[in-house]
């Protein structure tokens, strides 16, 4: 029977089992925290960690998605003043509103028809 040496706590037993494990990455840590060469500085920059808060980031992305989704709709129904600049001002006739030039063209057409 192959029993382990007597220990008084699980921690001591585990320490006994893991005694060969020692942290050996001190140099790598120091290279990252105290970069001496250009390459190490570049590596530190490349490995730089940023923290992005989930809720604000997700909210911003959702907002952008909504704006992008609605943009084509809003542009299709938008009324650009320059688009109607050549149609003259708006006028009211018999309780309705018309572009002045449209109205005049319509009136001229009716007059032509009645003359015919």
């Amino acid at each position, binding site marked *: 029977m192959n029993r382990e040496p007597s220990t008084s706590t*699980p*921690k001591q*037993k*585990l320490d006994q089992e893991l005694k060969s494990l*020692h*942290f*050996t990455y001190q140099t*790598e840590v*120091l290279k990252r*925290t105290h970069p001496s060469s250009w390459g190490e500085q570049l590596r530190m920059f490349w490995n730089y960690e940023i923290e992005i808060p989930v809720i604000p980031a997700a909210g911003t992305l959702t907002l952008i998605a909504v704006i992008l989704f609605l943009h084509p709709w809003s542009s299709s129904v938008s009324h650009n003043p320059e688009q109607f600049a050549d149609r003259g001002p708006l006028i009211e006739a018999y309780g309705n509103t018309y572009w002045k030039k449209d109205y005049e063209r319509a009136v001229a057409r009716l007059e032509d028809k009645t003359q015919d």
Partner: protein
Amino acid sequence: MQELVEKNEAALRHLMDQYGDELLRTAYLLLKDRQAAEEAVQDTFIEVYTQISKLRDRDKLRSWMFRIMINRCRMRQRTWSWKNLFPSSEVESWLEDEQQHGPEFQIFLEWRNGRLSDAIHQLAYIYREVITLYYYSEMSIQEIAEQLNISENTIKARLVRGRNQLRSLWEKEERQDEQGT
């Protein structure tokens, strides 16, 4: 501590000498892989070094480092298994069985031919985590609950189930020993 805040390299070396092995062994118990554990502890020290000014209570340095290391281990663990990080719904039912140092405690000490650390590695991550922090890092249930940001009852339940699984492994090993002799 103040020297660490002032970005003193010697202070960082001292910190690594003081806590490196303990953090590495804990990370190894959690991750089951020497290299992954080394990398997790490496990242822990880098984060400690860069974020040290945020630590307000200097007496909590060790606890803070452990929290960072645990998070690092969880991040590595998540890359291959999400499901192990979520508790099962039946966990709460084991609460009533929670006892202080039951027979399982003795089993820990009398583990036979196999190694206790190997047995811990066979547990699912959520049980390995609490068993390691409770028995190896010797944290209290309250401390573990704070570190993992989950309730004390859940910690107790995971401890019970982790110990039960270790006992099953121990009994299996005993049977194999008896059949072998």
